[in-house]
């Protein structure tokens, strides 16, 4: 540990101020968007709101949450996130366990097969054609399956599994346990941290996912949150009854959109500080190994 100096130099002051500025820049958009969503419509429409709210009303939120297609979008996102993450965790752990077993024959070949995909992929069009030929277009499968696995997550799992002492599996084998039992009774219960890390990344990924649903889903009723949000921003001026936008004209479009943004980031902003360590751990393992 470096010895702590007790005096503060000019540089430290400068550094501290710089950091405060950086933090302010990071936070400001959230505050601005929030203010736009709760301020009095009169001030919003004349562009008077710049930082803090002026006036306070929740009309925009009221309209936003009354939209059935908006609520359904949230519901869809939760369904996709939960099922997608379950599939990811199951499949990734199943695939990773043999790779972590000592003397697993063929491991380096498999590793090459998996790692190669980190550098090369078929691209947007061939993947789309594949999904289409598999008749997954416009189904939940197109949202879950093509993104179910990644070499990245696999490496994180393999690294973690390797850390588990072999003595545990060895003594189980002596007791007559087969590989399935070892995996489910011994390894997995010890794997809560890695499940948390990969699981959280997966959930956040699904929450934020736009491109997959954009390319593969056609029915409005199946849209997840980000796709719905995008639809709200697509129109410049409201003409009649667009999807995901309220029918009344009282709420300024700006306030409505900002309410939408705010309610979409809120879950992330609220939960993420507590889960930070999982994400960081994941990145470290993944980057160092990769």
């Amino acid at each position, binding site marked *: 540990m*470096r010895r702590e*100096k007790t005096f503060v130099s000019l540089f430290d002051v400068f550094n501290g101020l710089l950091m405060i500025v950086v933090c302010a820049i990071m936070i400001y958009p959230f505050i*601005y968007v929030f203010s736009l969503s709760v301020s009095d419509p009169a001030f919003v429409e004349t562009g008077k709101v710049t930082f803090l709210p002026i006036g306070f009303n929740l009309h925009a939120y009221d309209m936003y949450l009354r939209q059935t297609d908006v609520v359904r979008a949230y519901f869809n996102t939760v369904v996709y996130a939960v099922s997608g993450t379950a599939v990811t965790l199951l499949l990734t752990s199943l695939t990773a366990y043999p790779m972590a077993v000592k003397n697993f024959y063929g491991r380096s*070949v498999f590793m090459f097969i998996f790692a190669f995909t980190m550098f090369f992929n078929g691209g947007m069009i*061939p993947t789309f054609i594949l999904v289409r030929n598999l008749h997954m277009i416009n189904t939940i499968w197109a949202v879950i399956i093509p993104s179910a696995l990644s070499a990245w997550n696999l490496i994180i799992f393999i690294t973690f599994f390797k850390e588990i002492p072999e003595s545990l599996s060895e003594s189980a084998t002596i007791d007559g346990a087969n590989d399935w039992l070892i995996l489910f009774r011994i390894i997995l219960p010890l794997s809560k941290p890695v499940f948390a890390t990969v699981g959280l990344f997966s959930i*956040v990924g699904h929450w934020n996912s736009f491109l997959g649903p954009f390319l593969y889903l056609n029915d409005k009723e199946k849209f997840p949150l980000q796709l719905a949000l995008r639809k709200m921003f697509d129109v410049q001026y409201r003409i009649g009854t667009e999807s995901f936008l309220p029918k009344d004209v009282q709420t300024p479009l700006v306030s409505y959109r900002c309410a939408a943004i705010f309610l979409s980031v809120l879950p992330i902003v609220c939960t993420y500080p507590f889960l*930070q360590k999982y994400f960081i751990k994941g990145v470290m393992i993944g980057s160092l190994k990769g």
Partner: protein
Amino acid sequence: MKKKKFSGGLIGHIKKRPALYLMILPGLLWFIIFCYVPMYGVVIAFKDYSIGQSFFAGKWIGLRHFVSFVNDPYFFRLMKNTFLLGFYDLLWGFPLPIIFALLLNEMKANKFKGAVQTISYLPYFISTVIIVGMMFSILSIDGVVNTFLSNFGIKPVLFFSEPGWFRTLYVASGIWQGLGWNSIIYLAAISGINPELYESAKIDGASRFRQAVSITVPCIIPTISILLIMKIGSVLNISFEKVYLLYSPSTYETADIIGTYVYRRGFLSYDYSYSTAVGLFQSGISLILLSTANYFSKKLSESSLW
């Protein structure tokens, strides 16, 4: 990486521990179907392909699509935009997290440092749609920036319709999103530096700045090199999502990249073969860039990807 030959030994091993191979089977199939089949699928770039066929069908026409692309009136614009966008992203977006990590490392107030880190990681978890949405709000005609400018008598700037602003918006939002998160790996590398190096430097009377320049930076050069190689290799792989969400026909001049062109030609005009060829062209160039960067890094600093 060695490639083991598949001899009778494999069958023997499968018989010995069948469970392991059964476990890896679904995942293996997944990689084959969803990663390698599309890789094979790029072969349609060399064929006259129509939708609904398998990747094996279609008349072979060789490099015709590639030739068409090079002669495409948009070819130069697409290459220029894709390259410049990636280049500016590299130029500004690569060094800043490193500097941020170095400055963060100098901070002594640990609680403050922790708070700064937490706050700086946050933008990374925000989706592209929302970031673009925020940008729309802040930079709109009656958004805070234009209101501010009007106080000085400057006319409102249409940030999203003027080609000149696109690159700045793209790169700046990338920095906003990635500054904190990308500094993590550098901070990790810095924390791995042997403290004795600093001790002896202090005894020799080195100032903090001198310590940073002569100890910290050289020790993380290997990390920087690897990440730099990877970044250079992917300089052309611009995030389709952000460009697509940020651009509009009026900014195509600077905003239209190979990826978005591939999207329009493929999904909106149904030219599947042609757009795949264009995408493959981009991958080819990326590969050349990656290999070149790797080669030079090996020569100059002994660290490389392969």
